[in-house]
Every structure is written in structure tokens, then in C-alpha cells.
């Protein structure tokens, strides 16, 4: 049983971690996009 | 077709001539081979049972010697800025690639000529037999095909020495697996040889064709 928990535990942690990575990256890039668009090309 | 052979021949001749004259790589490879065997001899310390691990040592040494040989061919072009002059001709990229791969394979083969007898000395294995030579030649060609393709990619990026092994080693696995089996049989282990050699030939044909098709996209901007 412990193997089962271990295997699924690892899988869920990795997949969830990847989803969080994607969301966080998307947010940070979107934020920088707004920054660039507001400040005009000079803010680049 | 004649132009293809002329270009491939010219590139191979140019590389080998450069190698024979500057004698950069061959001594380095020769030294590397003997050193690797020495380390393996002490590292594995199997005393008399050497012949059992000889195929493994053979493949490990050939794999890393291959990385040195293939990496060097394109790195040299890049350092002398001659790669661009080479590509600014109408010569077909597949032919240029074939020439480079042929020359690199020849250098690796020369290195194997040192390696196999040294293996016999260090591990007491029967030295050269036709099946062993056939297996070595076919694996060398297959590894050269893929190795030079990835060397051409690596040479055009920043961290080239890092990228070549990372790309080539996984793709060489089939050659080492089947080549290893063929060598084991050739060195007297039991088992059926023709199957292994036939398989190696199939791999060679497949990967050399794929590599020369891909050369067009790797050697052009």
C-alpha cells in the first residue's frame, strides 16, 4: 500500500506543481505585458 | 549524383588531410583510449574474468571517443570561421554532411584499431575477428551519422560541448545495445551473430538516411 501512496503522491505533486508553474508564469508575463503597454515602448 | 560524391569526397578528404597534418585529434584519441582501458582495468579489477566485461569497456570507450571525434569536426569549422564559406556554395548540404560524417567515422575507426588490440592486452580477449570488425564498422557508421548531425547543431549554439553528449547518447542506445550483443558473440559468447549484424545494418541505413535528410535543415540558416 505504501508503494501505491508513494507513487500517486509523487504523480500528483509533480502534476500539480507543473500546473502552478504554468499559472504563475502566465500571470507574471501578463503583468509585464500590461506594464509595457501602459508605459509605452519606452518602458521596455 | 556525381556532384554529390565529388562534394562528399572533397569534404572527407579535406577533414582527414587536416587531421593527418595537424595531428590534433588522433593522438588525443589514442591517449584517451589507452587511459580508459587502464582505468577500466583497475576500476573493475576483475582479475582473470576480464573477458566478461571487455564488451562493456569497449563500448564505453568508443562512445566517449566518438563524442570527442564528432564534436571536434564541426567545432574546428566553427572556430576557423570556415563553416560559413563552406555553406556559401551551392554544394548540397547532405553531401557536405556525408563527407563530415565519413571523415569522423574514419577517425573513430582509426581509434578502434588502437582500442581492440589494447583490449586484448588488458583483458585477454581474442583480438580481431571478422564479425567483431563488421560490428564495429556498422556501429561506427551509425553513431557517426547521428553524432555529426548533433555536432552540427551543437557547434552552432553557445554551450556546444554540453549539448553534444546530451543529444547523442540517448540516440546511440540502440547501437550500443545491439552492437554490444554482436561483440559479445564475436568475442566468443554464445548466441546468434547474423541477427545482430543484420539489425545493425537496418539501423545504419535508417539513421544515415534520416541524418542526411535532416542535414539540410541543420546546416542552413
Amino acid at each position, binding site marked *: 500500500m505504501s508503494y501505491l501512496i508513494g507513487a500517486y503522491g509523487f504523480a500528483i505533486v509533480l502534476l500539480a506543481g507543473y500546473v502552478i508553474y504554468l499559472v504563475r508564469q502566465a500571470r507574471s508575463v501578463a503583468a509585464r505585458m500590461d506594464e509595457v503597454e501602459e508605459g509605452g515602448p519606452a518602458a521596455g | 549524383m556525381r556532384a554529390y560524391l565529388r562534394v562528399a569526397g572533397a569534404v572527407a578528404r579535406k577533414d582527414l*588531410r587536416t587531421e593527418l597534418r595537424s595531428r590534433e585529434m588522433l593522438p588525443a584519441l589514442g591517449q584517451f583510449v589507452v587511459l580508459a582501458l587502464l582505468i577500466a582495468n583497475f576500476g573493475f579489477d576483475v582479475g582473470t574474468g576480464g573477458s566478461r566485461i571487455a564488451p562493456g569497456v569497449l563500448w564505453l570507450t568508443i562512445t566517449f571517443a566518438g563524442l570527442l571525434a564528432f564534436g571536434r569536426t564541426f567545432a574546428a569549422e566553427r572556430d*576557423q570561421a570556415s563553416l*560559413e564559406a563552406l555553406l*556559401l556554395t*551551392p554544394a548540397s548540404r547532405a553531401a557536405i554532411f556525408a563527407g563530415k560524417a565519413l571523415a569522423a567515422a574514419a577517425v573513430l575507426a582509426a581509434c578502434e584499431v588502437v582500442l581492440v588490440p589494447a583490449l586484448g592486452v588488458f583483458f585477454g580477449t581474442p583480438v580481431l575477428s571478422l564479425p567483431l570488425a563488421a560490428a564495429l564498422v556498422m556501429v561506427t557508421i551509425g553513431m557517426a551519422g547521428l553524432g555529426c548531425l548533433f555536432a552540427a547543431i551543437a557547434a552552432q549554439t553557445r554551450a556546444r560541448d554540453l549539448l553534444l553528449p546530451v543529444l547523442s547518447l540517448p540516440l546511440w542506445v540502440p547501437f550500443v545495445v545491439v552492437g554490444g550483443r554482436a561483440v559479445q558473440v564475436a568475442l566468443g559468447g554464445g548466441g546468434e551473430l547474423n541477427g545482430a549484424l543484420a539489425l545493425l545494418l537496418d539501423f545504419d541505413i535508417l539513421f544515415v538516411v534520416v541524418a542526411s535528410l535532416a542535414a539540410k535543415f541543420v546546416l542552413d*540558416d
Partner: protein
Amino acid sequence: MRAIEAVGLRQRYGTRTVLGPLDLVLEEGERLAVLGENGSGKTTLLRLLATAARPAGGELRLLGLDASTERTELRGRIGYLGDVAGHYPALTALENLEFFCDLQGVERPRARATLELVGLAAAAHRPAAELSRGMAQRLGLARATLHAPQLLVLDEPDAGLDEEGREVLAAVVAGRTLVLATHDRELASRLCQKSLDLSRRGLEVYR
């Protein structure tokens, strides 16, 4: 047929625009000098004209062919000498040229003939590594004209050339369509009919 037709030609490295937008026309047989101080885009322009690099924007037709799609065809008709000659050091001068004969699909005797044209016959069997800078430039000139190109693109070929070397340069470019990047305005006016100064963006006609 026009040798060069460039409309709105632009080149960029990362975020910096290093050339253009530039319009340029060169008729067959004309010789153009490209002037301008360092960093004005001379080498960038010549690399585009020799299909050694792809433009970031604009249209470029060379010898009636599209510079982006018909590159292999063009590379048989353009002779290019870049800012770095890129010879194979271990090969002799003659072997270097014979190698490029094979690549260009030209018969090998042409190598020796071109070697004599640039006055390097005596150094035929000397490894390229041992050639002086001027001789390496001449070997580069030989390599650029080996396949009788319709368009010559030479990036500061006069660098390192002695007086005799300059005469060789004049002989080599005579009667050809040429784009020559140089700092030497006197040489430019002597060899070329038109000049383009990338620093002041002015197209000036000498005669």
C-alpha cells in the same frame, strides 16, 4: 537584368535595428562602393547581399532571383569575401582553392589559374596558416572569383593589401558587377562608379 534590387531592406540584432530600411538598385556591370565608419552597417549589408544572412524585413532580389528562397542557386553565382577569410590552415593555398572547386562544381585546373591571377602562384604549396594577412586576402579574392560569379561582394578586401595587392584587386574586379565595402575613399572612387555612405545615407555618383 538588375544585379541587386532591395526595397525597404532592414536587419536587426535582438532589439537593435542595425540597417535600413534601405532601398538599393544596382544594374549589371555597375560597381558600387559602400562607405561609412565602423558600426554603420557595411558588413551587415554585404552579408545580406551575399546570402550569408537573412534580412529582418524588406524585399531583396539578387540577379533576378529571390534572396530568401533561391539561395542555393544564388550561391553558385555570387562571389563573397567576408571580413574573416576563413581558410583551412592545414591545407595549402592550392588545396584550399581546389577544395572550393569541388564545392562549386568547377574543374580543378581553375584553382591554379586563379591562384596565378592573384599573384600567389609562388605560395601555392604553402599552408594557409603560414600566409601573411595580405596573402590570405588575395587567397580570399581568388576563392571569391573561382566560379566566375556574376556578382562580387567584397568586405574590405583592401585591408592588408600592399600596392601590388591593390593592383591585383583592380584586375580582379575589372568588368564585373561589384559591391565593395571599404574605408579607403580614394580606392572607392578609383574602382567604383557609385558609392553609398551608410553613415550619411547618401547615394553619390562619382562620374
